[in-house]
C-alpha cells in the first residue's frame, strides 16, 4: 500500500455513557475508495466528524496526510472536500455564487465554476437559486463544492442517498475521476451495491467497532457462500426453485444428480452480497 492518506489508531468517542466509536483503527491509501458501512447509529457519522475535525477524539489518533487532526486541524481541513448527508448549501444564492464563495475561502487560484458545474451536469441552471433545485441537483452541487479545492481527501457521507439513477451515475463518475487524480475517498453509504462497485476496500462498523475490513472480493470469499439457483419443472406444470451450494465437497455430485434426475429449466449462479455478509457477521441488517 502507498503511504496512507488517512491513518486511524484506536480512535474512540462517546456521547456521555454512549460509546459511539470504540477503538477503531484503519488506514486509507491515496487514490483508494474506502467504503465505511454500517446501519444508522453504528458510529459512521461520528467517525466522519472525528476525521474531519468536527469532534475531538477522546482517545486514539487520526492523521490525515501526515497531519494530526487535533493539533493540525485547520491545515488538514484545507486538504479536505466534504459532501454532507444533509444538504447545507446557501439556497438563496445560485450555484456559481455557492462555488465561488468556497473557492475564495480555499484561495483557489483561477477557479472556473462553470467548468465544474459542467462536470456535475448543472450547466444551464447555474444562475438559478439553489432553492429551486431538485434533491439530485443539490447533491451534485454538494459534490461540486467538495471538489472546489481539488482536495486530496474526499469525505462523502451518503452521497447518492435518494438520488435518481442519472444523478447517482454522475456522482459515481466524479468519485472515480477524483481517485484517478490521486484523492483518497472515505465513503459512507447504505447502498451495498454502490459500495461494492466503488470501494477498493470496505469496513463494516457495528456498535462502534470495526467487525470486518477487506476488499469486497476477499470478504465475499471469506464470509459469503456462492450458490447455484436452479429452476426445475414438474410433470404437473409447476416449477420449483432449488439451491445448490458451491465451494463445498459434495457440490459436483449434487449438480450432477440434479441434472440427471430433474427437468432443469434455468440455472443461475449467485454470490453473497455485502449485505448478506454484514448480516452473517453482525446478525442484523444495514437499514435498521
Amino acid at each position: 500500500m502507498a503511504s496512507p492518506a488517512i491513518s486511524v489508531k484506536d480512535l474512540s468517542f462517546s456521547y456521555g455513557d454512549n460509546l459511539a466509536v470504540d477503538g477503531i483503527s484503519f488506514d486509507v491509501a491515496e487514490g483508494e475508495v474506502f467504503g465505511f458501512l454500517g446501519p444508522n447509529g453504528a458510529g459512521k457519522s461520528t467517525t466522519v466528524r472525528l476525521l474531519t475535525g468536527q469532534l475531538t477524539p477522546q482517545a486514539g489518533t487520526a492523521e490525515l496526510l501526515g497531519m494530526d487532526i487535533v493539533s493540525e486541524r485547520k491545515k488538514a481541513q484545507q486538504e479536505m472536500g466534504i459532501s454532507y448527508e444533509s444538504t447545507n448549501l446557501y439556497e438563496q444564492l445560485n450555484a456559481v455564487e455557492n462555488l465561488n464563495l468556497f473557492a475564495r475561502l480555499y484561495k483557489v487560484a483561477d477557479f472556473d465554476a462553470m467548468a465544474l458545474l459542467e462536470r456535475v451536469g448543472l450547466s444551464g441552471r447555474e444562475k438559478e437559486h439553489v432553492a429551486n433545485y431538485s434533491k439530485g441537483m443539490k447533491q451534485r452541487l454538494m459534490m461540486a463544492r467538495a471538489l472546489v479545492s481539488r482536495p486530496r481527501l474526499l469525505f462523502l457521507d451518503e452521497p447518492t442517498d435518494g438520488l435518481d439513477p442519472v444523478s447517482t451515475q454522475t456522482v459515481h463518475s466524479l468519485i472515480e475521476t477524483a481517485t484517478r487524480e490521486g484523492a483518497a475517498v472515505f465513503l459512507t453509504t447504505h447502498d451495498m451495491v454502490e459500495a461494492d462497485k466503488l470501494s477498493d476496500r470496505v469496513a463494516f462498523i457495528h456498535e462502534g467497532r470495526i467487525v470486518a475490513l477487506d476488499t469486497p472480493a476477499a470478504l465475499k470469499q471469506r464470509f459469503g457462500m456462492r450458490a447455484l439457483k436452479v429452476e426445475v419443472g414438474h410433470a404437473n406444470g409447476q416449477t420449483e426453485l432449488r439451491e445448490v451450494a458451491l465451494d463445498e465437497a459434495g457440490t459436483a455430485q449434487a449438480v450432477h444428480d440434479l441434472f440427471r434426475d430433474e427437468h432443469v429449466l434455468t440455472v443461475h449462479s449467485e454470490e453473497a452480497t455485502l449485505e448478506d455478509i454484514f448480516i452473517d457477521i453482525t446478525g442484523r441488517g444495514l437499514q435498521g
Partner: protein
Amino acid sequence: MISALVAKDVKLFFRNRFFATVTGLALVLYLAIYFLLPLQTENSVGVAIHLEDPAASPEFRQRLTEDEDFTLFPSKDEMLAALEDTDDYFVGMSVPAAAAQAVARGEATTLQAFYAPDVPAEAKQVFHELLVFIANMVNPDLMARLSPIEETEFVLGHDLLGQPLAVRDRFLPLLLLAMVMTEVLGLGTLIVREIETGTARALLTGPLRLPTFLVAKIVTGLVLAMSQVVIVVLVTGKIVVSPLLLLTTLFLGSLLIVGMAFFIAAISRNNTSVLAWGTLTLILFLIPALSIMLPGLASGWMELVPSHYLADALHRVLNFQAGWADVARDLFLLAAAGPAALVIGGAVLRRRL
C-alpha cells in the same frame, strides 16, 4: 476571506424578501414620518383663566389681557371646554371672587388648577410654580414685601434648557436607534439560519476559523446597521452636525447592537425565537429613546439599559450640537458595553458552532 463572507451575507440579507422589504419600507417610512412631523418649535404656553369677579382686581385683569399667553374666559365651563378640546392651552385656573380679598388680608386661599390631558408631571410642577406666581400677582403689595432674592445659576455640562426642539428633532434619535435595532433581527436571523441549515458547519470544516467567521458577522452587522442610519442622517441633513462625532456614536451603538444580535442568535433555536427575543430586546432598548420624545417617561432605571447612552449621545449631538467632551461619558460607556456584548454574545454563540 472576510470580504467574501460579508458580501455573501449582504446578498443573503437582501435576497430574504421579508428583510429586504422591511428594510426598504422602514427607511422610506421613517423618513416620511420625520419630514411630516412639525418643524416649528412650540414656544408659547397658553394659560386659560376665568375670574369669577373681574371687577375685584382691575390691575390684575389688565395685566392678563395684555399678555398674549393668557386668555380670559367669561365662564368656568368655557374655560374647561377650551382646555380639554383644543391644543391651545396646557393649564387653566378659575380664580374665586373672594381670593383677591383673602390674599390682600394675608389669609390662605385655595386655587384650583386644571391641566390638559397630555401634560407631563414635570410640566405640571412648572405650571404649579407659575400659578403660585400669578396668584401672588393678585396682590402686588404682597409681592413687593417679599425679600428680593439674588439668584445665580450654574449649569453643569451642556445647557439643554432654553433650547426648545421641534418634534421631528426629538424623533430623530428614536428613529436612528430603531433602525439600528432592527438589525438585531436581521443579523440574528442570518446567524441562526447558518446554524440551522448547516452552512456554518460547511464553512468551519474548511480553512475558515471561527474567529474569522465571527468577525465577518460583526462587519456584516455594522454594514447593515450603519448603511441605513447614514442614509437617514444624509437625507435629513444632520450629517453636517459634527460628522465624525455622529458617525463614531453610531458606530459604537451599532457595535452594541451586533453584540446583542450574537447573544440572541446563540439563545435562539430558530427564526421564530430570534423574532421573539429580538422584539423583546427592541422594546427594552427603545424605551430610553422614547423618553426623549416624551420626557415624562424618563426614569433613573433607564440608565441601566445600554441603549440609553446611544440615545442620549445622539440626542445631544444632533439636537444640541454637543461636542466630544459633552458626550464623552456616553461614548465611553458605549465603547465598554459594545465590546462586552460582543464578547459575551460571541462566547455563547461559540458553543453552538
